[in-house]
């Protein structure tokens, strides 16, 4: 028996969670609006078809790229680059960041350095990278690596510093030495946060892909987009953007799934 005077629910309620149906409809809605405006703008001739082709054209092109032009190969190469560069960045950032977050003496050494290098305009390193790494995969990986590694170190360090002091002191009073404390308490405690930070930073790596693949490259999504620029194939550029967006979201989902899978104990149960 719901009282008749029950508060009537308005569309906008602070922190009132919404039904799943509405969430799905909203998500679909915004994309319909987006593509709708795009479609109207192009079909209605508000924008030059040459520079902004209609979404239908772009989908068509995307389809063709996949079916006829082996775009999947380019995607594979780009994904490979992003993954390898990111893995290298993680392989450096996680140990270094955890050490910096655990030992103030180490933080004092590296933090002033790392925080300045975050501002590094990675693209201006291209000539230097080419000089050092030649023309193979190395300079592209190095660019992607440089674009993300300093942010990642900073984030890992911050998260490590947030590991609760009580956990560390508990380990110490259980007889743990420094290395046990770091490896068996601090590291597992911070790992879920590290994975979350990696999820966020992977997006940065994707945004750098286009720049990296201009560097001595004929393969990959970025190189395809460069070629498309040359021939004014805006539809292919937009295809590339859409594919990168979709890949980004896909990786986001993968990271989320990995998070759930790696850290089953974080599932909340019991009230």
């Amino acid at each position: 028996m719901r009282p008749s005077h029950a508060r009537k629910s308005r569309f906008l309620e602070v922190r009132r969670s919404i039904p799943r149906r509405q969430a799905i409809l909203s998500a679909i809605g915004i994309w319909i609006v987006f593509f709708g405006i795009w479609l109207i703008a192009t079909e209605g001739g508000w924008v030059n078809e040459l520079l902004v082709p209609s979404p239908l054209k772009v989908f068509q092109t995307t389809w063709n790229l996949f079916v006829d032009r082996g775009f999947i190969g380019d995607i594979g190469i780009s994904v490979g680059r992003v993954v390898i560069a990111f893995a290298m960045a993680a392989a450096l950032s996680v140990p270094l960041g955890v050490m910096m977050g655990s030992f103030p003496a180490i933080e004092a050494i590296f933090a002033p350095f790392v925080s300045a290098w975050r501002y590094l305009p990675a693209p201006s390193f291209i000539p230097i990278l080419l000089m050092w790494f030649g023309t193979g995969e190395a300079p592209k990986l190095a660019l992607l690596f440089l674009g993300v590694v300093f942010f990642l170190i900073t984030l890992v360090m911050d998260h490590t510093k947030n590991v609760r002091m009580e956990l560390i002191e508990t380990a110490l009073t259980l007889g743990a030495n420094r290395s046990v404390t770091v490896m068996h308490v601090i590291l597992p405690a911070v790992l879920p946060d590290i994975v979350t930070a990696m999820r966020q930073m992977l997006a940065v790596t994707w945004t750098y892909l286009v720049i990296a693949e201009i560097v001595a490259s004929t393969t990959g999504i970025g190189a395809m987009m460069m070629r498309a620029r040359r021939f004014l194939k805006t539809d292919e550029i937009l295809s590339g953007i859409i594919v990168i967006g979709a890949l980004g979201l896909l990786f986001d989902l993968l990271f989320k799934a990995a998070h759930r899978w790696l850290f089953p104990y974080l599932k909340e149960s019991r009230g």
Partner: protein
Amino acid sequence: MSSTVLQLDRISKTFQLGGGRELTAVDRVSFEVEENAICVLLGPSGCGKSTVLRMIAGLETPTGGEITLGRHPVTGPGRDRGMVFQAYTSFDWLTVRRNVEFGMKINGVPAGERRERAEHFIRLVGLSKFLDAYPSQLSGGMRQRVAIARTLANGPELLLMDEPFGALDAETRWQMQELMADVAEQAKTGMVIVTHDIEEAIFLADKIVFLSAHPGRVKEEIVPAFKAGGRIRPKEELVQTPGYAELERKIMRLMREEGQHE
């Protein structure tokens, strides 16, 4: 009757604050803890109870005085003094069993013995059903029991607890108090417990060390005389015991006197 396991001899602690200022949190505190006895540290907020406990644990270095455990001076944290904090310190990435085995594992206890001891102490704290559960699946009181089992399983000579039940609700707190009384009897581990709760103090303590604030000094050492025959349970009985109400009022008065200073 029983011998001294821990001795604090005129322990002081002065913190260096910013700008060259200093704060003497603990000033020449001396007391002793007897074997298998529960010693409760009581006192107003900020009187240095936690600081004293942390110095015993070796997590802070005294700026004066000496702490002796058995025959050895305390110089740093060690497995001989286990500590349980108010905040939950279960290692969320390990199951209950592996939480309890943690200390033994890092101290090189062989797997078989580890397993046995872990199970024994998990049983003692009543969590046998949750051997393979993760801490996040447990309630607050159960997590605190994991922490206690983990500390006990590590075989410390002394169990240090800083307001271990402060975050728990009344009924769970009672259960835990009774558990600790059992543990003290069965595991034969001495304990130093910091608490705010007068009832808890009276229920658990073989000796109450009351600290005064600013700076923290020992104001009074109280040995509840009516407990000479052992701990009284169930708790409902305690409030009826002759002498209880007087002791409660006395401590309340002490607290209130100290509270004024603030």
